């Protein structure tokens, strides 16, 4: 089972480049695709889901170019788009039955699968209610269920936890971990904690380009020994932000506890911390921006 993304570029009308020479090779496991807004994540997801075609480059699923034989992938694809609609007059079960028929599942398998999926996403009690009355989080769970209908070998989920409450988010993370064994899961998000929880691999994308691809440990190694905590009066926070990369702050009784990513301690009283993936992500992104700015200046 292999997904190869070879030099994929996508340029929209008005010469807006969303992806530029993107290259990646994936096997079974969960890939966390991280990047800021507008980095090209959703464009990449749509290309992999055969919704959009790349302007250049190709995507191979087990050696087959999905541009020429999209059904080779679609048969085994589960896709949860960032924005999707539902048919408001259908119930959750009916909507899933409809999509199961579209995906070509036979009636008996579909019935069993839909029952399990509704249990899985905690919608069994609401299965017969019209989707038009569902909350955003409930609709998102229906979206998750439909993506799993055909027992996909490639599961692409774009911002899947948007709108989910904390309990459902944890539940979804656990589900992704369990599913990842024998399939490729691509989890696109800008919520670093989601990726931290489940990803076996991380790809960082910015300005349509792949910046880093590797295991979370490798990304973390880059900021090992470079994360500090300083406690300062709140009035000094703007000055600290001017000179350093501050990844988080928390107001406490003794002042502001700021988490700083820097090569050297930002203050003599700074305390070294264990790096988190968010620290590594922000530091890598900041380094990329500096490099891009320097390149532009030349």
């Amino acid at each position, binding site marked *: 089972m292999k997904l190869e993304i070879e030099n994929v570029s996508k340029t929209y009308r008005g010469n807006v480049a969303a992806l530029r020479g993107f290259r990646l090779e994936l096997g079974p496991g969960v890939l966390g695709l991280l990047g800021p807004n507008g980095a090209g994540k959703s464009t990449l997801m*749509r290309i992999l*889901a*055969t*919704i*959009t*075609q790349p302007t250049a480059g190709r995507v191979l699923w087990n050696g087959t170019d999905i541009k020429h034989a*999209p*059904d080779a992938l*679609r*048969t085994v*694809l589960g*896709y949860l*788009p960032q*924005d*999707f*609609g*539902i*048919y*408001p*007059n*259908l119930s959750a079960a*009916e909507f899933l*039955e*409809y*999509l199961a*028929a*579209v*995906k*070509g*599942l*036979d*009636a008996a*398998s*579909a019935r*069993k*699968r839909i029952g*399990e*999926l509704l*249990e*899985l996403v*905690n919608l069994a009690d*609401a299965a017969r*209610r*019209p989707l*038009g*009355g*569902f909350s955003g989080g409930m609709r998102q769970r229906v*979206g998750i269920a*439909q993506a*799993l209908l*055909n*027992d996909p070998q490639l599961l692409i989920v774009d911002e899947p936890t948007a709108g989910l409450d904390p*309990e459902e988010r*944890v*539940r979804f993370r*656990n*589900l992704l971990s*369990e*599913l990842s064994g024998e399939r490729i899961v691509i989890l696109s998000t800008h919520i670093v904690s989601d990726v931290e929880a489940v990803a076996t691999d991380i790809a960082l994308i910015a300005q349509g380009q792949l910046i880093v691809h590797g295991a979370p440990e490798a990304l973390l190694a880059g900021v090992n020994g470079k994360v500090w905590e300083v406690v300062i009066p709140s009035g000094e926070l703007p000055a600290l932000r001017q000179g350093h990369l501050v990844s988080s702050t928390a107001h406490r009784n003794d002042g502001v506890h700021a988490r700083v990513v820097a090569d050297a301690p930002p203050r003599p009283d700074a305390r070294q911390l264990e790096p988190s993936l968010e620290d590594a992500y922000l530091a890598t992104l900041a380094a990329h921006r500096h490099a891009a700015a320097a390149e532009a200046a030349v």
Partner: protein
Amino acid sequence: MRPLRVVYAMARADFLERVRRYSYLVTLLFAVYLGYAAGTGIISLRLGDYRGVYTSAWIGAMVSLVATTFLSLVGFYIVKNAVDRDRQTRVGEILAATPLTKSSYLLGKLLSNFAVLASMVAVLAVAAVAMQILAAEDRTFHIGALILPFLFFTLPAMALTAAMALLFEAFRFLRGGFGNVLWFFLWSFGIALPAVTNHPQLDPSGLWMVYQSMLPAAHAGIPGYKEGFSLTIADKSVRVATGFHWNGVEWTPEIVILRLAWIAVAISLVLCGTWFFDRFDPARSRQKSGARSRRKGAAAPAGVAPEFSTVQAPIVTSTHLTPLATGARHSGSWRILVAELRLALKGYRWWWYAVAGGLLIAQFAAPLDVARGPLLAVAWLWPILVWSALGTREARFGTEQLLFSCARILPRQFPAAWMAGILVAALTGLGAAVRLALAGQSIGLLAWAAGALFIPSLALALGVWSGTSKFFEGLYVALWYVGPLHRVPGIDFTGSANGPQAGRYALFYLGVAAILVGAAFFRRARQLRGA
């Protein structure tokens, strides 16, 4: 001054959003075509068998009436999306959270609707000038006679059209396909209103006013003229009455006030609409079942902190998924057909099925001519909203990405959706088909089958290409009105009015259906390729 600024800002933003879409170019092209049709005689204004000399007054009146008549019908469908766009893009919810009043919002939208329609009128006004130059029947230009009909006939009618479109959007039950169908009948009624009531005041289009103004000159200049005044399409029998000189409508203050009063009516209608406009409150448009089920969930009392001594593990339900069997992904085509049929018919209330059933039973019980004539005509208008969803449902509900990432959409789902439409036509018109078969009328049966194929094919093609159900709803009702209802041979796609030519017309409609399905297939294939 602030409310005026808000109205202006609302109208400006909405107008710019519209004119920067490709569909606006199509809109303008339609106006150009209307101008061309008027200029080349495809559409003509006639009194009896004659038309007047193409003077400034005649051309101004004729082109302005063409604009008034056709743009008030088609323009309604073009602009009836001002509020819906804000609903779909969810900009409406942002606006609803501001101090913007319902009246400011709707008046802004009215202005924008009016501006779009007025831009089409402007194209036709230019066409009128060009027409007089090119026709060269009278080289004397009277700019007032040429342009004033646009100002006093067309623009007030456009204001009224813009307001009606907005009013329909304000009422929940008129927002969708039912409103689109209803508009056609309202429009027909509006055109006939002054003739029916004999009140020149009730003349939103101005047709009656022009007719009354032309009568004395017509009696004097047209040999043997008694009565008759119409805008006709593709009628080659019209002759020029060289002695018929009409100097145009005399714009007395009363007439001008009467015409401008329609603008006041338009504004009043929109202000009335504020009573019914939900201001993007989903609770006011949500289904009752949803509201009921929400009430079931009892909320915890506020302000009470939870008490626990030890942290409990969450209750975890099963996350086990049985892997699909190897052959599970190869279901028969009938399953997708049943799923499409269910989707097409879902959401209709019991009375919808009751009426469809009643019409079906009546087809079995009535004499054959009635069964395949008026009864079949009504039976094939009743499911119009089922058909108009073909090809547009995915775009309307935003399920394209879910569907288009599935395998074999073109060979499975696309034909299944089309077949579901045909099945609806076949089921609703089954009585007429059985009666024709029992009577041994094979040509009649062929015509019936051609109709049953033609309707969903037209719906699918227009839906897939336009992405909206409005075009089918508007065009189909117009076709139905002229063909099956008024029994115009050739236009009657049910075949009952086509007499000895029924077989030939049936083959024609079968051919058209094939072309339409081919066009829809081609477009859907392109959509699937992400083009």
